[in-house]
């Protein structure tokens, strides 16, 4: 992530003039279902505008909503993965006028959401409460044409109702987040959960995952909750971090001159790197929530919920736990975080399950596999394990294993053919020892310094040996030989 020109540094706590940040996040995620929330229209991104529409999602007079069962299953999955209580819930109408809202109201959940009172543990160990995760419908997409991007200044506007009625889950966190970095960590972890569950494709830029931040500040150490502002238009993790930092500082500056923020919705201006007031108070909406009379209460049975629970296997938390347990106390947390990636995890998991050393499997996954996975047409779990086994059995050296792994992902040949083609047979140990002796003889001054105890020169010799053997030497044999020679010469 590029550094912003604001003072906040990623990975540090946030403290400004004695104030701390209090942030709660609302994450909207589009659910990956075949059809929409209340009708059978396709739920697909990128189709020709207004082709995935019907009388129901266009809100034509006389139409009625029918709840999509798959949406209920996915929402419960999210709730269970976020440690929520899954309860009997109801639907409400949220009333407001806007051209992208076909019925003049959005069907959402209000006082009785399907999931409530959960939490999400972040990799850093911080726990963020989940207030609720409820079901609602998406709106259409409006594009303002000509002159300016804002409606009041545009020549005309186009509306695409393909998105109208697409199922969403809104996940509302407690105000437990205290730095921009924690907010980023929360979103990354939550996105990992949603992708692992298979309920969302997690694309922030395409809008399938949308984040609003409720930001306030308070004097460090206090437990009060001060006036918050809701920040919208956070289209990337970078904007999220910068906007929260900016907004927190804006509040502190107001308090420092005896002023105070007003509760309002603000818009993150990416170009100007600042937040702006979106609506004036006069236009504040009264949504007139009331129970949706066209839908019945949603009361999933215990059996239905347990059935969904049994399908949840690979959340980041569960993946992390599996890898750490396999490592039996060994610390590899950075690599573990990389290896639990949605695409990488199946490889490392399988390798460990068939008996490859967890340490080796995690290292090769987090380093080599992560670097090549985006362009790996010939990679398969079997080929990955085959390479790791060759390395583990010392048939090839670690550096050869890295070369081989990369080649195996890109070449449509068997692993043994690739080994032959690249001449990746590990050097004979005796051969390696004689190369080491040659190198030592060629570099008398370095050798003298090594004998005097400059251990950092070990790398120098290993590198030379590798160069001469074309990477075929086993690094550990080289090191052993060097140490034996040092003992002999000193």
């Amino acid at each position, binding site marked *: 992530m590029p550094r912003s020109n604001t003072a906040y540094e990623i990975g540090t706590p946030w403290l400004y003039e004695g104030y701390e940040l209090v942030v709660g996040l609302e994450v909207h995620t589009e659910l990956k279902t075949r059809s929409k929330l209340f009708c059978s229209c396709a739920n697909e991104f990128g189709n020709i505008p207004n082709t995935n529409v019907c*009388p129901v999602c*266009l*809100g*034509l*007079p*006389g*139409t*009625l*909503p*029918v*709840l999509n069962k798959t949406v209920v299953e996915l929402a419960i999955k999210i709730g269970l993965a976020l440690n929520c209580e899954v309860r009997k819930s109801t639907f409400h*109408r949220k*009333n407001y*006028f806007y*051209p992208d809202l*076909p*019925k*003049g*109201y959005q069907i959402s959940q209000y006082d009785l959401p399907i999931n409530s009172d959960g939490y999400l543990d972040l990799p850093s160990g911080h726990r963020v409460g989940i207030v609720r995760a409820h079901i609602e419908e998406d709106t259409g997409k409006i594009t303002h044409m000509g002159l300016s991007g804002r*409606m*009041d200044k545009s020549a005309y506007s186009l*509306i695409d109702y393909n998105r109208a009625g697409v199922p969403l889950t809104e996940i509302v966190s407690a105000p437990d987040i205290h730095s921009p970095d924690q907010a980023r960590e929360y979103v990354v972890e939550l996105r990992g959960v949603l992708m692992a569950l298979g309920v969302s494709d997690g694309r922030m830029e395409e809008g399938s995952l949308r984040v609003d931040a409720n930001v306030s500040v308070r004097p460090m150490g206090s437990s009060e909750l001060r006036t918050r502002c809701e920040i919208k238009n956070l289209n990337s993790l970078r904007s999220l971090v910068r906007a929260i930092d900016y907004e927190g500082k804006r509040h502190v500056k107001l308090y420092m001159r005896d002023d105070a923020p007003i509760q309002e919705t603000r818009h993150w201006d990416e170009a100007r790197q600042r937040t702006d007031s979106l609506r004036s108070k006069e236009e504040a909406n*009264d949504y*007139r*929530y*009331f129970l949706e*009379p*066209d*839908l*019945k209460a949603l009361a999933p049975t215990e059996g239905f919920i347990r059935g969904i629970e049994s399908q949840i296997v690979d959340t980041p938390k569960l993946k992390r736990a599996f890898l750490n347990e396999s490592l039996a106390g060994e610390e590899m947390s950075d690599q573990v975080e990389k290896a639990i990636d949605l695409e990488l995890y199946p490889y490392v998991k399988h390798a460990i399950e068939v008996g490859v050393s967890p340490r080796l499997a995690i290292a090769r996954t987090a380093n080599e596999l992560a670097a090549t996975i985006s362009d790996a047409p010939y990679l398969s779990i079997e080929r990955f394990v085959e390479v790791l086994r060759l390395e583990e059995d010392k048939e090839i050296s670690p550096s050869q294993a890295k070369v081989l792994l990369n080649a195996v992902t890109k070449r449509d040949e068997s692993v043994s053919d690739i080994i032959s083609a690249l001449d990746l047979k590990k050097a004979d140990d005796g051969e390696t020892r004689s190369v080491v002796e040659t190198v030592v003889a060629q570099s008398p001054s370095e050798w003298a310094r090594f004998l005097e105890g400059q251990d950092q020169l070990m790398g120098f010799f290993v590198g030379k040996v590798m160069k001469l053997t074309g990477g075929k030497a086993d690094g550990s044999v080289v090191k052993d030989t060097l140490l034996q020679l040092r003992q002999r010469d000193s």
Partner: protein
Amino acid sequence: MEVNPLDLDAYSLSGAVLSKEISVSEVVRSVIAQVELREPSISAFLHFDPEALLEKASVLDEKVLRGETVGRLVGVPVAVKDNMVTSDMPTTAASKILEGWRPPYDATVVELIKDAGGLVVGKTNLDEFAMGSSTENSAYKVTRNPHDLSKVPGGSSGGSAAAVAARMSILALGSDTGGSIRQPASLCGVVGVKPTYGYVSRYGLIAFASSLDQIGPIARTVKDAALLLEVIGERDPKDSTSILGERPKLVEREAFGVESLRIGIVSELVDNCSTEVRDRVFMAARLLEERGAKVDTVSAKAVTLGLSAYYVIAPAEASSNLSRYDGVRFGLRKDGSSLTDMFFSTRTEGFGDEVKRRIMLGTYALSSGYYDQYYGKALATRGLIRRQFNEVYKDFDLLLGPTSPTTAFAIGEKSNDPMAMYMNDICTIPSNLAGHPAVSIPFGLADNGLPIGVQLLGPDMSEPLLFQAAFELERLAKENLEDARA
């Protein structure tokens, strides 16, 4: 003299069509002739297209000739209230805001009628978006009572009731949110049924107040009403509030009688009526008793709160249901200099006064700070009414009362006094709030020559019993009273 098909009931008519005694084209020609005769003075229809009708008739006739399977309503004319969408006719809900709108789909009830071989003859007039009790609130025309052209037909299903009463159709569909089927049926001297909430699909019914709206039949006889309800009463997966399971048979209840049925007269409902109407209710009670029913009076105080609760709940839901008429996707659009301006001009011009009044009432009732005081309280009252009814139904099978406090009133008489107009629904609203079924049956004429209707009410899914008693009341009226037909 030849039999006019319009003199037959739906049962006999479909039989005659099946046995090829009468062709559907002949039926349609009779309908057209009757409409030409009566419609100019009554104005029951918003859409009536004789040529399209003749075409549909010849298609049906060919089917009959080829011996194809045709349904139970083959060749039977059905007039449809213009708040139910039809793919082959415009649908306006009697509002300017939907003028010229052609729905791309058929309401479930319309599909069911077509599947049964029924002929949708046209779309009938109503109070705009079904908001009213006289059909004077239509943006297009004022419908007149076939019994007396200076009187209202009632509403909001006034067009459907008048069309059936004037024999321009044999059957009709109405919708009932607070009495909109039963009250015009009563004022026009025909049978009107509001089924249990969820009995008939609302898919394709332009919503007024979703938790109260229910479609039901209007017919000249109880048997025809039963037949039509059997056709349209189907579980519909497109309506989440549709009751699960099979609907009971109703036509077969014709000969069951009322022997040992326990029938209660709700004193709070008769208290608010004209003497003439009240006397007729007690007369009906006495006659039912003679046929073996056990009749007693009963008090249900909560029903007096119905009107107040209704006029919070119905407008609240309406204010939300009518938000979609914004000029963006269909219907009327009035351009404006800004988005808000366009919404404002479209809705100002598209909606009539009564609709605006209810949108404002409902918006206010749902506003933050007022919700508990109005909407919350109205919901609590609604629960109370339902519980009190169910308490009464422990001792009674059915209840008996008036449908409308008076006979038809004069056109213009109450149109400037909303409260007087709202009072018309005082006897019918409680059933909607409870979700219960009720039937209005013509029970003779008043001294002024206008029809009086009596109402039977029952608990959830009591349609078979209600029809059983309605059949009996119909027989009693025939034996003891003047013919109430227009």
